[in-house]
């Protein structure tokens, strides 16, 4: 019996080898008969996971050889486990694509746990999204610039002290001398919206997709007002996100109230750094050892995929706003800029690290 099973296993292996060699005779890069996995470094059912699962059907058909597309989840360490694995252990044949959201900020806030070099990751593309801070009507303000001279104490809610998203509004309130308290420990942004309704919090911020689906209705109900947006990086500058033309960026508010001289302030520089760090909100990456030919083929596939009108239409319907994507070279340019800032402005980086430890 043992001999029989050994024969069976050998037969299967041999069959597979034949199969593999047949597919490899094609000269150009092709993933025919292979499985390409998008590796999500978070659990099943999170925002990143759900987005990837929606995109999957559109992705495969743009990749040469029409491979089977699957999602693989490798949660842990707030994303670090999966990020490290893609960089160090994933196969070099291009069948694993990482979809990262926090790899950029992780290199700053968790340097001793990160086992990859940001500058060496190869970016296939990404999507841009901004974040929006909003405050409860209880504060009695109508717009961001009203924050200056606010008499009431602000209770600002966030999930964890390390949350990079919450650092921009925290820095804004520091620059404007707003009396505020950072309340940490909420499980999700949904919990914080509930806390705002109960009057437990008076300010928080949220992602663009949550803003359109959950916060805008609250604005219409008259419960909250939008304060400021992070903006997006365009041609090396931080500008208002074209999908939210009426909400000013944090930078506009600070410059209007404090004048141009504030640009030299380390807090302002730290804010700018944060906006660049978030330039590629979610990006798809290859490990550095994937061959150039494979990288080029996949980058071209992603370009086609991100321009696919069916995919864009699906997303507009699903998330309620236009998808703005970055191709490989655009994403790489933003990451290069981040790497450069990390080297050139250590003072701003130190301030951000301190913010990640104390409210």
């Amino acid at each position, binding site marked *: 019996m043992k001999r029989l099973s050994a024969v069976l296993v050998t037969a299967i292996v041999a069959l597979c080898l034949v199969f593999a060699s047949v597919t490899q005779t094609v000269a150009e890069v092709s993933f025919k008969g292979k499985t390409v996995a998008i590796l999500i470094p978070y659990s099943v059912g999170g925002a990143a996971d759900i987005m990837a699962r*929606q995109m999957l059907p559109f992705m495969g058909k743009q990749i040469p050889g029409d491979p089977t597309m699957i999602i693989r989840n*490798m949660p842990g360490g*707030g994303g670090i486990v999966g990020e490290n694995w893609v960089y160090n252990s994933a196969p070099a044949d291009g069948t694993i694509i990482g979809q990262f959201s926090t790899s950029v900020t992780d290199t700053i806030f968790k340097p001793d746990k990160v086992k990859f070099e940001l500058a060496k990751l190869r970016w296939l593309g990404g999507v841009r999204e901004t974040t929006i801070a909003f405050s409860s009507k209880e504060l009695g303000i109508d717009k961001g610039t009203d924050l200056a001279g606010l008499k009431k104490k602000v209770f600002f809610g966030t999930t964890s002290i*390390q949350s990079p998203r919450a650092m921009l509004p925290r820095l804004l309130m520091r620059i404007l001398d707003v009396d505020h*308290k950072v309340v940490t420990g*909420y499980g999700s942004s*949904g919990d914080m919206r509930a806390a705002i309704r109960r009057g437990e919090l008076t300010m928080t911020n949220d992602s663009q997709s949550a803003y359109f689906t959950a916060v805008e209705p609250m604005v219409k109900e008259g419960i909250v007002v939008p304060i400021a947006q992070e903006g997006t990086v365009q041609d090396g500058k931080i500008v208002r996100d074209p999908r939210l033309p009426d909400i000013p960026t944090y930078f506009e508010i600070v410059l209007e109230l404090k004048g141009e001289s504030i640009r030299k302030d380390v807090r302002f520089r730290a804010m700018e750094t944060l906006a660049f760090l978030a330039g590629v909100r979610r990006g798809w990456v290859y490990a550095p050892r994937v061959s150039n030919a494979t990288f080029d083929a996949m980058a071209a596939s992603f370009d086609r995929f991100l321009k696919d009108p069916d995919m864009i239409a699906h997303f507009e319907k699903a998330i309620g706003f236009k998808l703005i994507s970055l191709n490989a070279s655009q994403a790489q340019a933003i990451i290069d800029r981040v790497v450069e800032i990390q080297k050139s402005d250590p003072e701003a980086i130190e301030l951000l690290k301190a913010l990640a430890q104390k409210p």
Partner: protein
Amino acid sequence: MTGNRRLTWLAILVVLALWIYLAQDMAAEIGAASMKGLLRVFAWPAFGYLLLGNVIGFAVGMLPGLGGPVTMALMLGFAFQLKMDAVEAFSFLLGMMAVTATTGDITSVLFGIPGEGSTASTIVEGHPMAKKGEAGRALGASLMSSLMGALVGACAIAVAIPIVTPLVLSLGTPEFFMLTVAGVTFVGALSGGSVVKGLAAGGLGFMFSLVGLDMQTATERYTFGFIYLWGGGETGGAGIGLVPATVGLFAIPEIVDLATKGGSIAQAHVGRLGGVLQGVKDALRHWWLVIRCSAMGTYIGIIPGMGGPVSQWVAYAHAMQSSGKQDQVGTGVIEGVVGPGAANNSTLGGALIPTIAFGIPGNVTTAILLGAFLILGLRPGTSMLTKDLDVTLSLVWVLVVSNVITVSVCFLFLNQLARLTRIKGTLLIPPLLLFIYLGSYTHSNSIGDIVITLIFGALGWLMVTFDWSRPALLLGLVLGRLADNYLWITYSRYEFGFLARPGVLIILGIIIVSIAYPLISQRRRVRAAEPES
């Protein structure tokens, strides 16, 4: 006792009157939309997808390896690929989710291994019944109470529609914190012989929950340098996963026990399965307990972060406490099967309420459902309670129809299911071990999950041997992380002013009573017994 009952009836009447007063404008509208919603569920192909969802949910609930939330997320992509519309998609997804707690109870009763994270409590009383050869009765009771619980949870959504704002927003984080403490004391105080050991086990569970990255200062607590122990999620979270710990605590000792005792699971003669009918009668006889536990389950579902893993134990503690059989914990007390069976099913209905009304998901399951809603173009919020009311009520019907179908099908197969307890242990052990490890592994797809299962397996086995309360430890683990976060939110927001909030004081009173009552009644029983001896 009669005075007590009269008082409860009075309370029900007052609540009913209040509801009618608040809902008078909407009652007719709810009625009409409810009919429309029912027709949408029975339309083709939505009904076909509902049945498909039921089938998948049936298997997922039974298999200890697969949790409802994980499978639902995996099925999400399937729903997109088939281009289902809104009603079809949630007939499928919710139809699947609605039955996992029902069939999960079956695995818990038969094998002493939790089919779902939210059905572990059914083991404590249900599995001893299976060992005594009463598997049929335990299954009958748990299925019937599951059905009743699901119905109460579904009705709760409809009932909540006019009063949703006060219902969801009346309690704040300070009250949530107090409720976590109350939950652990309920279960700790119950643990059979020794209240001291029960409370200590709950405290240890709290300490285990601290493993991971702390949210306030990002301190690594008890992580020994392993990133695995930081916990998942984009912002950190509990380092010890609920499923690996639950499976370890309850399933590993069962495997050891099964192999040591030899033979099959049922060690006494399994009589005719007429017991099933007896179990159904048990559930009906305890209808008032079922309603109370279902109501608790629904309300716990509304509270953010809590869900089936919490409500089952609170219901269990309540069922045992009110049965007056606290000293018979773990011997197969039928109330201890009926109570949690109802509560873990009603929780889903409760968790849907804030999801629908405010887009605020109560737990992981509803967070995934919310994602699906958004993608399918449904916007939770006031429109779901006005313009799209029929869609909301078709959700209610999905819960009702799915559970009616599943429970009926289960009754057809109960004979075959109960016979599983007579299969030889050696044949069962490898598949059971497969599902134990697979279940814990799917928590974060890491070998670390398996190590956690082994550690908690050893702990669970020792706790069984030396008579410590595993439920209290597990509930401490579930609630500890929430309590830690709630405490800090409370303190940084209100400082010590939170102690003066009326809600906090009321819950504090309940906690004191729940500790004092068993002590007093124990003493009274001792005193009553004295003259005889």
